[in-house]
């Protein structure tokens, strides 16, 4: 079996920025293609939030209209977009331990590419997936009656806002998923996020929560994103929630990025014998 080894000899190591961007794009492409075929990610990132949207609208639509006077969709569509972002990331995070065990991370680590491109590529893929599922959800929302007070520009910003929080959450999930006990930890994190699913301002107005809970509901990472999106659609306070959401995103990245980088490297180096 003769393998042609004379052609394409000596591809040099490229240290340029374009190479870095290209390699990040390749990793992002690989992950997006993989997620399209992975049933867990499809369910959690797309089907689950869509179902949730429709079901919640049926369950509390009338009640919210009666209490607040406005359509529940303005809270539910943002909430489901954020749910899709977070749970999609969790689903993708579950795949990391498998990649670690099979040695795929190691193999990618040993290529002549920028080592940071593995992580930037992953975050890029997360952002794209979040935006895509947000678009789908918004389309559903519009079909159900959602309208944008700010027109097309507001709609475009609407689908981009959840990307912020998703990058922050993705960094945290990567940091956790690359650990040796990654699969279990991600499952626990998922359970924790289910709690967030109930206690946010998208599902019910803050005032209806017991008073001792209201501050927590207002401040948890999902709520400012939801409020910012609500502001874009309905027309309401926008800057303050957007700022809060930004702080959460930046904070998560700042806290978890070092661990994520270190952990990814350790996972690629496959620990010790």
């Amino acid at each position: 079996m003769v393998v042609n080894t004379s052609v394409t000899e000596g591809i040099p190591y490229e240290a340029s920025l374009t190479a870095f961007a290209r390699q990040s794009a390749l990793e992002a492409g690989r992950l997006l293609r993989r997620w399209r075929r992975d049933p867990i990610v499809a369910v959690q990132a797309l089907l689950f939030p869509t179902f949730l949207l429709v079901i919640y609208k049926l369950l509390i639509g009338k009640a919210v209209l009666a209490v607040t006077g406005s359509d529940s969709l303005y809270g539910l569509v943002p909430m489901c977009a954020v749910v899709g972002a977070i749970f999609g990331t969790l689903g993708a995070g579950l795949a990391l331990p498998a990649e670690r065990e099979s040695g795929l991370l190691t193999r990618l680590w040993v290529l002549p590419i920028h080592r940071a491109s593995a992580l930037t590529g992953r975050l890029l893929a997360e952002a794209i997936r979040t935006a895509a599922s947000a678009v789908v959800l918004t389309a559903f929302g519009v079909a159900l009656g959602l309208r944008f007070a700010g027109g097309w520009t507001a709609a475009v910003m609407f689908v981009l806002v959840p990307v912020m929080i998703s990058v922050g959450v993705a960094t945290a999930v990567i940091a956790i998923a690359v650990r040796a006990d990654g699969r279990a930890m991600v499952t626990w994190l998922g359970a924790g996020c289910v709690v967030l699913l109930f206690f946010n301002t998208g599902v019910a107005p803050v005032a209806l929560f017991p008073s001792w809970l209201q501050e927590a509901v207002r401040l948890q990472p999902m709520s400012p994103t939801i409020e910012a999106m609500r502001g874009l659609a309905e027309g309401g306070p926008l800057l303050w929630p957007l700022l809060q959401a930004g702080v959460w995103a930046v904070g998560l990245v700042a806290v978890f990025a070092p661990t994520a980088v270190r952990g990814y490297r350790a996972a690629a180096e496959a620990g010790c014998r």
Partner: protein
Amino acid sequence: MSALAALTLRTLSGTLRDADLLFAVLAPVGCFLGFTLALGNLIHTGQMTYPQYVLPVVIVQAMLFGAMTTADRAARDRLSGFGVRLATLPIPAVVPLAARMLYCLIRAVIALVAGTAVASMFGFRMAGGMGYAVLFVVIVLAFAIAVCLGADALGSRVGSVESSSQLLLLPQLVLVLLSTGMAPAESFPAWLGPFVRYQPVSQVTETLRGLASGHVSGAGLAVTVAWCIALMALFGGLALGMQRRTRWS
């Protein structure tokens, strides 16, 4: 008989590793708190307090969660090397299934206790007396076994471990949230009324709520019991059939 005990113990110790029993406690507690605190002031349930109203559906939800993990376990037992070896042993095909169901029962009891405990902290009471309380428990456990059998049949059939529980997530969402267990039928849009009123989860939660409060309609009770028996028979047959099929088909 000892094979049954051994297999049940093995299932138990396996789940200790992935904290399934801990989830069995946390899921109903979490759901109850979530529903009560977030939706309690939003949904109007007339005379009854929301905790009293919503507990039955939380219990039913916990049973469905248990069914999801059963599907996973059944898939793993079938696909893994252990499952293949089990098939070569001289034990009747029903024994591994019975072991999983026994575990399911244990889990169901734990979830029931946890859910009722947290609800009673918010004012839930079994006002119907001893007889009704016993009937309450029996129906819950019968329902649990029925859905676990169905999940087991599904898990034994589907290809990979991951997809089995995912498939069950969405129908569960629909059945639980769009039922009178969450809110009275009037809170839903009118066109949804018939579905909400007559779907099995609604039937079961209505009966359970009646048993808990002491006023239960005979017809409702009969329908619920009929559902449980029918599902147990149907899914039991399917699950057993799955066990007997050769692995390589």
